[in-house]
Structures are given as C-alpha cells and as structure tokens.
C-alpha cells in the first residue's frame, strides 16, 4: 500500500477525481437546439454508432478521471515501501535525523584511547555516507535537549556533515528524552511519509538514561516515553557507542559540612566516591588541594560494586578569601576521567553584616541587643575569625540606614517602623536577605499582625509572663530535631538550651507555611522560621534579655545564635558552586559597576568579563550554555577585579558518571515498538534492515501525463473533444 507525505492532499485528490464526472454530467445539460429535417439519417447514424460512442465516452471519461486522480496523488507525494517495483519506478528518499549524544558520559574512553563520542561521530559519518543523496538529513545534539537548532531535515547533506564536524563533547548532563522528542518533531516536519522517516540516536546506552526514575505522573521513564513517541512516527535506531568495559570510579560529591567557614577552626569536608563498576574497586588515593596547592592525600579503601564511600577530611584555612577546595582521585584507571576531580568554592572568614535594630539601644547589658550582638561576634583571635559583623542602631535610625551590604536585619524589641521602613524590609527579604524577629514589650502588635502572614511566620497574641500568670518559668523543647539550626546543639544536655528559663514570651499562632523549630513546654511555639521570596524570616518569641529569659547564660546560646544567623544569611554557596552548563551570576558591589573583571579558566585561558545588568542588578554573568559557554568545563574558575577576587567551582553532573549499560532487550521491550539496537561497529548493516521507502511521485506524475496524452490522442482519433 502506498503511503503519502500529505495524506490530506491524497484525500483531496480522491475528491477531485469526481470533477471530470461532474463536468461530464453537467455538460450533458448544456446543449444547443437545432431544428433538423434530415432526422432519419441522423437517427440511423446514431443507432449505428451508439455502442461505439458509449465505449469511447467511458474510455475517455475513465482516462480523464484517472489523470486528475493521479495528478492529485502525485502532488500528495506517494511512496511505496522498498521493493523491486517501487525501486524501479521511484526514487528512494527518506527524512533522517541523527541525534548525537554529547553529554559528559560520552567522554568515556575505550582501551584504545578513543572516546564514546569519537565512535559516535565516526558512526554518524558512516551513516551519512550510506544515505541516499536525495535524503534530507538533520543533526541534533542531545545537549540541545528540546531546543532544536534546525526545524526540519535539510536536503543539503553537507550541512549535516558540517554540523557533525563541529560537534564537540560537553561536560554537562544530557537529556535523551528531550532530544528524542525534538528529533520526532524535526523528522515529522519533513516531507517523507512515516515509513520513510528514520531517527538514529548515537549514544552510550547508559541504564541511567533509559530507566531512571520516572516523573511522578507516569510510571514510564521519560526516555522510554520519548522513544515510543519517536517509534510511532519514524524508524528508531539506537546505536551503542559506549565502551565495552564500563568500570567507573567517580568522585560524585564534595561538600562542606560546616555552615560557617572561618580561619579559627578546621572546616569539615566530605568527598563522596561511587563505584559504578560491576566489581569491587581497588584501593586508591584521594588528593586534596586548596587553591591548587596539595594539602593532603587520603587513602580510599576498596568500594564494593555499586557502593559509595564518604571520605571526610578537614582543612584549616589560613586567611579570609574565597577558596577553592578540590579533590582528585588518583590512579583510577577507569573509563571516565572527567569525574575523577571535583572542586568546591567556599567563602572563608568573610564576616556577614548583621543590622540589629534595637528598641532600647543603650550601652551595656541593659540594651535589648547586648547578648545577641556579642553572641554574633565573639572576640576573634585573629583576622578571619569572626563570622558576623553586627551593627546596632535605634529603631528610629532604620529609615536612613542602607541595606545593600547587610545580610541579616534583626529586630530586637523594636518599636513601630514607618511604612517606608516596612517596604524596605519586605524588599530586602524578597531579594534574599534574612530577617530575625525578637519581639519584646515594645513590639507594636497591630503593625506585626498587619505584616503577617506575608512576612511574619507568626501572628502575635499576647505576652505571657511567669510573674503575672503565677506560673513556673517555662522551658524550651525541641520541635524539629532534624532542623539544621539544631544540628550542632548536641541534644538535651543539662545546662544547655533546654534548661533555659523562659520568663516572658509572646503567645503566637504560627503561619501555615512556618516551620516550628523549638517549642515551650506549654506547647507554645518558641523559634519559628519560614521562607519569603528568596529570603528567610525567623522569629524567637522572647527578647534576648535576662528579664525575658536566661538563654544568654546558657552555653548553647552562642551556637544557637550563630546557627540561626547562618541559616538566615544568604548563602553564597549556590553562586560559587555550579554544575557544568549552568550560568553563574556574581553580583557586583556598588561603586564597581564599571569594572571589567578577568576570568581565568581551568585550562589557564583568560578573558575579560564586563559587568552587565541582570535581573535588576549589576552582575558578572558567566554564560553556562550560550555561545561563549565559559563555565561548560568542570574545574575552578577565578574571577578577579580590582574590588574582589572570586573562585567559582564548576562540577560535573554526578549522574553522568554512571556508565552501567542498559540491556538492549529491556529497552526494546520497554519501548514496545519498532526499534533497532546495534553496536556502532555494525552501523553499515543497519541499511540492510532499514531500507527506505521509495517516493513514486515522479512516476505517478509521469503516468498522469501519459494518461492526458492518451486521452488527447484518443479523443482526436474518436473525433470528439468535450
């Protein structure tokens, strides 16, 4: 059965074939009248020629109808599946899309030194050479995902060849599902019928790509669903270009365990190493560097197959800076070398500014913020030892105080604020700042209630005190033991946080979105937080004075204050640590908006980065996936200007390290459609099975033309043309 590139036109052609018949019928209604005397001769002639005339008319009408039908069908571009007849009369032509996996895992090398990507490119070139010159071809890269560079296959195969030549392996994660969906869209935009469409995915066929966790809404893995989509509209061939040995030991994570990184104390790090091989790995070593200087080398014991080993280590930093800590697995002899190194940038000893708005700002312990301020900035032994730099102002001074370099605003028993101050606070938190509320007896309840629930995590009710209620002082209790603020407090120890006496506190109703971290033994919430915009708000429902409680007298007070402050302060971690392919935005300090920074890449190359407007502020924007792709390669980048010096750690996506192959049979069964899975070596054999269909539009057009010619000649011979 022939198929059509434009089935709608084929249907229209069928309808158009009725036109000659209609014309014939209508023409029978249009005639001239002629009075005639010699009727007897006419009738005799008519009797004799009637049968012949009818045969002639039917023959001509059939020819006309067939010619119109064939012209219409030729326009609809029919094609026949490959066969001797179709090959004889038609031109074999197909639309083909080559999808080239250029994700990080394609860097994996074979024993001969060739990478999976090299094999994929060679196989793609072989495919291109096997294609019929009339075929339309498109090349789509997996890294492009759903965003196809071309909208349809092009008849210019040189274009595809150039795209193949220009393709380079990347270091980011590949989304095969999105790439296959894009390929389906591209191939469907072509002219060929479904039987003459083909999609070739040249990939390493990693199990992770095909059978990773499905989306919540469906139980089908995304790549399988996308492959089914392709198989419905085209022939799908999966060409395995991966290495034969898939052993890979990967450094999949490097984390800083401490929220506050200073110069006084060792900072804890953990390197996670995964064995993606099928057997236990050999013991190896891990080399740790700080700013490209080796600081220690650690033993990595054998890791069982599919196992993970966490290697902890500590680093004492020498000076305040943005330091780059990197870890290197040595002598792994695995398939993928790109994931044997991992880096992390940490901001060391850079105190974060805390603006304390005190309702009773006096010198000495009488001040409502005295204990808080000292807890935030204990006397440091040397430069880089302080984590926070508190500044205390009176509530009336808040309006005139700039907030651009403030990380946290703490309102300790502050009185009413102006509307402008409230708007500034709202913008500050929305932009990522931290707000710490410590209400006291001067706190304006109505104003706070007006702020809830948009900004505040609680709705204040009334002050409860042990004197007025003749109740025993109440004590805090842990409401959420997993919360990061409580992680380092050490649990319910005598003399600790939980033994503090809370003499006064605000009774309050937590907002639905709020998280209660500490409660009082009365059941009332005590320490609450919630997120607002890009920032965070915390509320301790008792002023930090001895009149309200004796928290400051407890050893846990300082850790609680520091943990809460570090929780509220905007983290620079996400800015300084990026995955390959992600853009990196580093805000520019005020006054340095015109300074061009110099970027040094992991390979030592240097380029200038001018500041630019980004999301309403001036920043250095390092493109992750654009034409410049400045952060596309994992490693440590250094951005230096006269005002600052930043290191940025770009890491490889850990999921790309899992090279374990998927079973072709499992893929075939999962796709449940027509799919060919072969090794790249056998790509030429693909054409034995993947014979394209032949487009016979030209032959049909020729046949239609012959019919018209025959009809003309016959009509002339028969002596009548209508």
């Amino acid at each position, binding site marked *: 059965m022939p198929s059509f590139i434009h089935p709608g036109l084929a249907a229209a052609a069928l309808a158009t074939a009725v036109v000659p018949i209609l014309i014939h019928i209508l*023409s*029978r209604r*249009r*005639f*001239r*009248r*002629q*009075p*005639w*005397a*010699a*009727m*007897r*001769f*006419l*009738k*005799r*002639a*008519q009797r*004799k*020629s009637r049968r012949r*005339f009818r045969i*002639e*008319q039917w023959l001509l009408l059939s020819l006309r109808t067939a010619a119109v039908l064939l012209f219409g069908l030729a326009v609809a571009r029919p094609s026949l599946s490959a066969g001797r007849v179709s090959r004889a009369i038609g031109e074999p032509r197909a639309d083909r899309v080559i999808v080239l996996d250029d994700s990080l895992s394609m860097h994996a090398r074979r024993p001969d030194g060739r990478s999976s990507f090299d094999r994929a490119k060679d196989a793609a070139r072989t495919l291109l050479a096997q294609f019929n010159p009339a075929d339309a071809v498109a090349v789509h890269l997996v890294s492009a995902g759903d965003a196809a560079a071309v909208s349809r296959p092009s008849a210019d195969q040189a274009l595809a060849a150039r795209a193949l030549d220009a393709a380079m392996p990347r270091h980011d994660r590949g989304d095969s599902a999105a790439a296959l969906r894009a390929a389906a869209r591209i191939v469907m935009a072509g002219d060929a019928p479904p039987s003459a469409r083909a999609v070739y995915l040249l990939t390493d066929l990693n199990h992770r790509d095909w059978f990773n966790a499905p989306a919540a809404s469906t139980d089908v893995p995304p790549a399988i669903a996308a492959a089914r989509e392709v198989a419905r509209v085209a022939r799908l061939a999966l060409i395995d270009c991966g290495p034969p040995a898939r052993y890979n030991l990967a450094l999949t994570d490097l984390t800083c365990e401490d929220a506050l990184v200073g110069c006084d104390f060792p900072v804890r790090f953990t390197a996670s190493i995964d064995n993606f091989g099928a057997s236990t790995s050999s013991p190896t070593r891990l080399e740790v560097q700080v700013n490209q200087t080796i600081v220690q080398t650690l033993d990595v014991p054998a890791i069982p197959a599919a196992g993970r080993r966490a290697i902890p280590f500590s680093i004492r930093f020498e000076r305040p800076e943005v330091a780059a800590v990197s870890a290197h697995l040595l002598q792994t002899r695995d398939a993928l070398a790109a994931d044997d190194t991992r880096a992390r940038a940490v901001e060391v000893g850079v105190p974060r500014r805390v603006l304390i708005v005190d309702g009773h700002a006096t010198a000495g312990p009488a001040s409502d913020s005295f204990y808080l301020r000292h807890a935030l900035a204990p006397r440091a032994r040397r430069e880089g030892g302080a984590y926070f730099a508190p500044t205390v102002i009176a509530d009336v001074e808040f309006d005139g105080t700039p907030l651009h370099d403030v990380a946290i605003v703490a309102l300790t028993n502050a009185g009413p604020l102006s509307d402008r101050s409230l708007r500034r606070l709202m913008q500050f938190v929305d932009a990522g700042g931290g707000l710490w509320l410590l209400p006291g007896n001067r706190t304006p309840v109505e104003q706070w209630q007006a702020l809830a629930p948009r900004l505040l995590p609680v709705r204040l009710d009334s002050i409860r005190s042990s004197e007025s209620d003749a109740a025993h002082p109440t004590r805090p209790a842990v409401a959420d033991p997993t919360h990061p603020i409580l992680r380092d407090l050490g649990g319910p120890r005598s003399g600790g946080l939980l033994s503090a006496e809370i003499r006064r506190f605000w009774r309050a109703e937590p907002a639905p979105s709020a998280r209660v971290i500490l409660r009082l033994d009365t059941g009332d919430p005590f320490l609450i937080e919630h997120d607002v915009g890009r920032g965070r708000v915390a509320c301790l429902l008792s002023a930090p004075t001895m009149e309200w409680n004796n928290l400051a007298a407890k050893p846990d007070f300082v850790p609680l204050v520091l943990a809460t402050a570090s929780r509220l302060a905007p983290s620079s971690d996400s800015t300084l640590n990026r995955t390959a392919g992600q853009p990196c935005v580093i805000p520019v300090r005020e006054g340095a908006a015109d300074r061009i920074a110099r970027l040094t890449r992991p390979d030592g190359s240097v380029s200038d980065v001018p500041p630019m407007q980004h999301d309403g502020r001036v920043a250095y924007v390092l493109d992750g996936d654009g034409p410049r792709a400045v952060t596309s390669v994992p490693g440590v980048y250094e951005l230096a200007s006269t005002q600052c010096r930043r290191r940025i750690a770009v890491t490889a996506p850990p999921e790309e390290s899992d090279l374990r192959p998927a079973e072709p049979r499992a893929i075939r069964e999962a796709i449940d459609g027509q799919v060919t899975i072969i090794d790249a070596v056998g790509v030429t054999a693909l054409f034995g099975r993947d014979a394209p269909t032949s487009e016979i539009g030209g032959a049909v057009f020729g046949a239609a033309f012959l019919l018209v010619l025959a009809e003309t000649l016959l009509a002339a011979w*028969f*002596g*009548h*043309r*209508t």
Partner: protein
Amino acid sequence: MPATLHEYRKYLDPAVLARLTGLELRARHLVEGFVSGMHRSPYRGHSVEFAEHRKYCQGDDLRHLDWRVLARTDKHYVKQYDQETNLQLTFVVDCSASMSFRSPDSPLSKREYATALAAALAYLALRQSDAVGLAVFDDRVTRFVRHSNQPTHWKAIVAELEHAPTARTTRLRHALDEIAEQLERRHVIVLISDLFDEPDEILHGLRHLRYRRHEPIVYHVLDHAELTFPFQELTRFEGLEEGGHLLTQARAVRDGYLAELNAFIDDVRRRCRQQRVDYALFDTREPLDRALSVFLATRGDRTR
C-alpha cells in the same frame, strides 16, 4: 431596377437573392442575371419563324449561317427564329415541413430556393413559349395550376408558389402518382424537392411518371448544413417532419450521418439513372445559374 443587364448577375447568388422580397422579383432578377451572362447563341430557338440576325460567334452551327448576307456583305451573320414550343412543362414543388429548413449559414431555406428556382424556370420557359404548369405537394398535391404558354400565366404560378402552405410530411409517391394520373399529354416534369422519403417510394413515383411517358427531371435541393453537417458540440436535433428529437454529440455522429446521407443520394442518383431520369443535386448556398443551365440543357435535349 438595375441599370444594366450585367448587374443582374449578382442575383444568381442566393445571398443577394435573399435580400429581395417577393418571389416574382426574385425570379425576374434571377433570369435576367442568368441571361446577361449567357453565351449569345443558344438563347433563341431554331424554329420556322424568322426573328432576327446576329453576328456569328465561334461555336454557332454553320447550318444557320445566312449565306446570302455573307455573299452580299462579306460578313458572317446567323439567322434566328422565334421558336414555336411543343413542350409541356410541369413544375412539381415540394412544400413539406422539411423544406422549410434553413441553416444559420444559408441565405435561403430549401423551400425559398426551390420556389425561386421554379419561378425562374417558369419565367424562362414562358419566354420561350413553353406551356408551363405547377403542382405543389407535401404528402399529396395541394395546389395545381393548369398549363398555359401565355406570359401572364407566370404571375399565377408565382402566386401559387408564394402562398402554398407548409405542412405535413413528404409523400412523394402519392404526389407523383396523383400527377401522373392527372396529366394526359406527355410532359416534362421538373420535380424540386429534398426527397426526404424512402428511395423505393421515390422510385415508384418516378417509374409511374415514366410509365405515363412523362419525362421527369429531379432537382434535389439540400441545405448546405445537411450536406456538410458542420455541428460540433452537444446538440439536440428536433425533427421538422417526423417529430421527436435526438440529443447527441454532433462530432461523434457526423461521419455516420454523412455516410448515410451520401449513400441515400448515391442510391437516388443511381436509381434515377436506371430510370433515365435526369438528376441534379443543389446546395442552397450554390448560385442558381447551374440549375438554369441544367434546365436549358435538358430542354434542348427534349426539343431537338
């Protein structure tokens, strides 16, 4: 009236003739036009009563040369005589419905052509003192005008031709039988018709005339379209005599029609020859002088 006789020549053309109203006028012009172009010699008869001299022309019979004048004047003159006729001429004109057919390209209908021809021939015959009679028929003889050689008789003939009604179908056999029975003396009978009847019927009628010792002459008048069938498109032909109609693709039946018609004409011509009946086919677009020449030639044969 035209100034000179030469100008009458144009009236031989049916297209010009069609512009003249009145059969009498048509016939006069037709004859004058014919006569003006004739060779001088054969117009006058060769009877016993001398009429005039005229100069000898090449082709004149030397028997009529006036030797006395030649001897006296040394010039060649031939003697001419007013012929005393012994011919009884009967024009039998078909006025059936089929004769009213006129195709768009033809200036005259078959009936107009036939009546003009009959009137002109009658005029010519009367000028030569032949006795002329007329019978008009369709499926029977509807009008009959007695024979006379008086010049005034011509107007009576013209009046009958003009006013004969058109109706009914052609029944040649009945009409010819009727005429054959009605005429007692030997007559030259000029039948002017489209002959749309069965050949056997026509032959029967002619044979009857021959049996009664008449000498029939058949002037077969057909429209140009009937002879050529120039139609191309789908046409509904509506019968003038037989009734009914036929919707057909004209191109498709053209060859068959012409074959049938030509076979009919050939058959009629062959049968006429077998019966020693003069036969002439006329196209209504054809100038009428040929008809007059045929008539004169035939008349010459009959009177010699």
